[in-house]
């Protein structure tokens, strides 16, 4: 019985390990070096910061 609890716990640990491995990978790749640029990466010239992109149909702004 105990072996299965430990196996289950090990599985959870494995899942946690994937998260930590991904975190280390991300730090090494410099993913956290340019945070401002990353936060702006969803905007572009056509839909820049300051542009509202959703309205009820038929509404103008």
């Amino acid at each position, binding site marked *: *019985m*105990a072996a*299965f*609890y430990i196996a*289950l*716990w090990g*599985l*959870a640990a*494995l*899942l*946690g390990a*994937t*998260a*930590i491995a*991904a*975190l280390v990978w*991300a730090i090494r790749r410099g*993913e*956290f070096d*340019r*945070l*401002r*640029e*990353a*936060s*702006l*990466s*969803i*905007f*572009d*010239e*056509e*839909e*820049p*910061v*300051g*542009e*509202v*992109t*959703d*309205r*009820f*149909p*038929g*509404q*103008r*702004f």
Partner: protein
Amino acid sequence: MSSHAETIPPAPEERERLTRIQIDRSCRQTVVWYYASAVFWLLVGTVLALIASIKMHTPGFLADWEWLTFGRVRPAHLAAMIYGWGSMAGVGTLLWLQARLTRNRLPLPTLLPATAVIWNLTVTFGVIAILAGYSTSIEWIEIPPATAILFGFCIAVIIAASIRMFRSRESEHTYVSQWYLFGAIFWFPLLYVSAQIFLHTPAAAGAVKAAANWWFAHNVLGLWFTPIGLATVYYLIPKVIGRPVHSYHLSLLGFWTLAIFYNWAGTHHLIGGPLPAWLITVGIVGSVMMFVPVITVAVNHHMTMVGNFHHLKHSPTLRFVVYGAMCYTAVSFQGSLQSLRSVNEITHFTHYTIAHAHLGVYAFFTMVMFGAIYYVAPRLLNAEWHSAGWIRVHFWTTAAGMAIYWLGLTWAGWEQGRMMNDPRIPFLDIVKYTVPWLWSRSAAGVLMTVGHLAFAWLFWNMLRKRGAYLPGPTLLLRKGEPAAVAAGGGE
């Protein structure tokens, strides 16, 4: 880049615009398939939910046919909602977000729509099997295990598509939503496969099976629906209001703490059960640690919205998404508190838990998915939603319905739990006490059904392009621009 705009056509704005049209169009077939299927399952799940809810206060209702007994209808409702509506809306949104965030076209144009078809067949088989009495009777994974291979195939294709887009991405930054999406698609298969092995093979039996069951079930919420929901919120709130997320640092802290803590929380479902105390304590610690990502995400979304709350009046997407984000905070706070032994001994095995589950899957995830579909579908189909009025009906009936549902069952569940802990109160008195609140649940269910019908009607008209035609990549009319051409039937 803008200095070249005058000399080199096409202008950067035009290039961006073309790219976005191409990206959105590349998603059309796959994502519309997933969304349309999701809406269908939402209706199926709603009917099953109503039947189950009415049976709770009127046990004779449809009791003569074994296919519609409570023990079958309720898990069929869960399967239709989780694997039909929730997962299909989630996968549709996930693929569209991946395409947008990597600035890539959606690859595998034949395989991906095929996965939608296979997914539908699998859920259809699963729901019918449950109604016919072939449920595995393990909560959240009632669909017979034979379907695992089909789900597995679909997920494998979705992973392949995501990796392909990510590897050849045009954007040099990884946006916070992408972390969440990758979390979802890598963790879910791991969970699903492990759960199948632990639950359907002789490897585990008895109390171990329960532990595996709740580790899986809780993680489906936390590592499948939650990351897809939060990825959507992190993309759509900034995108709709046109303002970057308040603190990008916090957004990353929120993701990595969720990634590290959530997976431990599942065993809090078994507090008081015949399991080793350490296993449960680990679950409680994991649940309480979840305060870190939750507070982080809540503060961040609130600060992003500060000064922009007036947009809620004008944007359907924002309404649904912000409602969902607020409920994420609420449900997570509630969840952490519920995992404490002192609270759990009252709430466990009561209607309180049902209210909590719906606050998570409905008020948070489903509402965010509604918001996403309102944003994405017009961009895929180049058509406007045909009626603002029906969108308002959808929002207010579902928002109010959910509030009534939650308030009624939370109150009833708490009182029910307190009474059950008092041995002097006869059990039947407790059952009778809950009946009016169960009626309030059915009333709330009717409200939500009205909302779902409104939504299905809107989506049906979107598929038939009954709304105004949109020539451009966005659905917004600017002052002075010619009005969009009505394609008939629009307002």
